[in-house]
């Protein structure tokens, strides 16, 4: 990458992420002092964000007595897998996990499709009422969930649709944020010429969307997919309200039961927390570039 920046030093943005062009030989020592402070600050922040997670990880391998007895030890003095085996043998952990992953997967697939459709409609067509419809869509971001919590619960239960698979998925598959994100990305990265060409070839509009537009959206579809998976996988309040059957508990509900039990079963909750978080963190690390850039790309342009 340094080769690329060396050959194009004049491009304003390309040098942002690159090593500094060395053209200030004077004052380097002052800069270095500033640099040391900067790195020190960033490393301290790193510790603030990572240490709590590492302590939870280490705690999950400590014998129950040590979790409370030696909270300051990051490396456990004795390592045990007992917490994990206790959790997995005494609690339906994999059932919670399966429920969470299943619900999140279905919700993600559907919502990515719905958002891409609507994003495309807003990005590439002119139509009557577009501005008003867009404003309506966008302003739904400002509706606090607390206002629909009670009536949505009542309506779904009364109509018999309060089953976990319906209630945890269907009301959440059209997030306005996702549509906004898609719309921004499509405006920037799908050229009109390609759509023209597809039309001239006789493709229907929907066919064009499926076979021409969707493939071009792959990076931001990935970002949106990670985002909506996380939303669903981590959601707590709505499952807490709507899921009454213990057999359909999601991970957060299961952990909450353990966590709020009389003896604060911390030795069971910790391994559960680790097992719940590690897959998400791995997926996030694998898809981090897509997610972080996809998330911010829309907001930058406003």
């Amino acid at each position, binding site marked *: 990458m340094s080769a690329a920046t060396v050959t194009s030093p004049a491009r304003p943005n390309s040098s942002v*992420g690159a090593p500094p062009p060395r053209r200030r030989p004077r004052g380097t020592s002052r800069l270095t002092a500033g640099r040391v402070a900067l790195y020190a600050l960033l490393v301290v922040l790193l510790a603030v964000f990572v240490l709590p997670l590492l302590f939870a990880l280490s705690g999950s391998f400590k014998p129950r007595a040590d979790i409370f007895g030696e909270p300051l030890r990051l490396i456990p003095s004795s390592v045990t897998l007992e917490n994990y085996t206790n959790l997995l043998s005494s609690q339906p952990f994999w059932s919670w996990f399966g429920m969470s992953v299943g619900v999140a997967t279905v919700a993600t697939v559907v919502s990515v499709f719905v958002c891409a459709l609507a994003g495309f*409609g807003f990005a590439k067509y002119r139509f009557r009422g577009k501005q008003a*419809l867009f404003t309506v869509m966008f302003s739904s971001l400002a509706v606090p969930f607390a206002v629909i*919590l*009670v009536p949505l619960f009542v309506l779904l239960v009364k109509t018999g649709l309060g089953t976990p698979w319906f209630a945890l998925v269907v009301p959440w598959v059209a997030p306005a944020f996702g549509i906004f994100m898609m719309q921004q990305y499509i405006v920037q990265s799908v050229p*009109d010429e390609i759509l023209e060409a597809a039309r001239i070839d006789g493709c229907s509009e929907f066919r064009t969307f499926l076979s021409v537009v969707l493939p071009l959206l792959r990076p931001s579809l990935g970002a949106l997919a990670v985002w909506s998976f996380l939303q669903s996988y981590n959601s707590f309040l709505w499952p807490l*309200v709507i899921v009454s059957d213990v057999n359909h508990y999601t991970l957060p509900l299961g952990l909450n039961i353990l*966590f709020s039990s009389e003896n604060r079963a911390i030795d069971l909750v910790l391994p559960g927390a680790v097992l719940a*978080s590690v897959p998400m963190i791995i997926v996030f690390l694998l898809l981090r570039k897509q997610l972080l850039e996809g998330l*911010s790309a829309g907001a930058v342009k406003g």
Partner: protein
Amino acid sequence: MSSLASAAPTAVIRGRTAPPGAAARRTLPSAATQRAPYLFIAPFYLLYVLFMIVPIVAALFLSLTSWVGLGTPDFVGLRNYGNLLGDSSFWTAAGNSGLYVLVAVVLVVPCSLLIAQALNARGLRARDLFRVTYFVPMVVSPIVVALIFSMLLDTEYGLVNSFLHAAFGLPGVDWLTDPSWARASVSFVLLWRWVGYLTIFFLAGLQAVPRELYEAAELDGAGPVRSFTTVTLPAIKPVTAFVVVTSFISAAQLFDEPYLLTGGGPGESTLSLAMFVYRAAFERQQFGYAAAAGVLLFVLVFAVSQLLNRALQIGRAA
């Protein structure tokens, strides 16, 4: 190298694919083309009406009734609203939610801007490592975050008090059981969980500011502070607007963190408005009362965010 990925995402996207003159959009006359956009956005609006408009209307109706969840709701007019205004718990919850909003907008947002500014330093190494790691708390489930912090902040066995005692001989602080400390703890967890997330938006915004603007400011003799206020802040206004509005909305309806960390306690000292709604409906079977509290929260959040949108000019169709 890793820092390549962090170079101005939008610029990369635009540079790669948008052909010159693509901005001029064409309208095609055929009937199918005219119908198409409506069909594309129809699924969203169908879901929107069913799961947002209908519930909001139902909330307005429920809020005018007294209902325990069984039988028919009794129409009581505006009595729920009157009772809410005289309910000290409601005002406590409103005050706490106000505090969470304040923390989000006045503390979390500026902190993430500062962190983004630090991460945007020229030639910074390991930028991607920092950026990604700071984001991780957002990936972790709130229940896991709450459990970790309730362990760390435990008065007797917690890491924080153990450390304070070992290092400075300080007596234990009741992080989660003293009213003021409990509010501070919830606020800290909010900061911890959100700041890396918001940093991403600011960093992308900062990276999109053309370098020439800074060079011009430097030539005009502007120092770092001055070029921050005259170049950076105006240039990142759209991102700032987006970040302020979304964190306002999320903080105003905060539920998970106080519910899981303190259960709203001690007493009601960390109770939020969303928790008030939840408690009224699902612990006390006062569905009408809960709906009325929800409607008030909705009116407040919606009005303020529309004002913010208008003032900061976001949310226009491209």
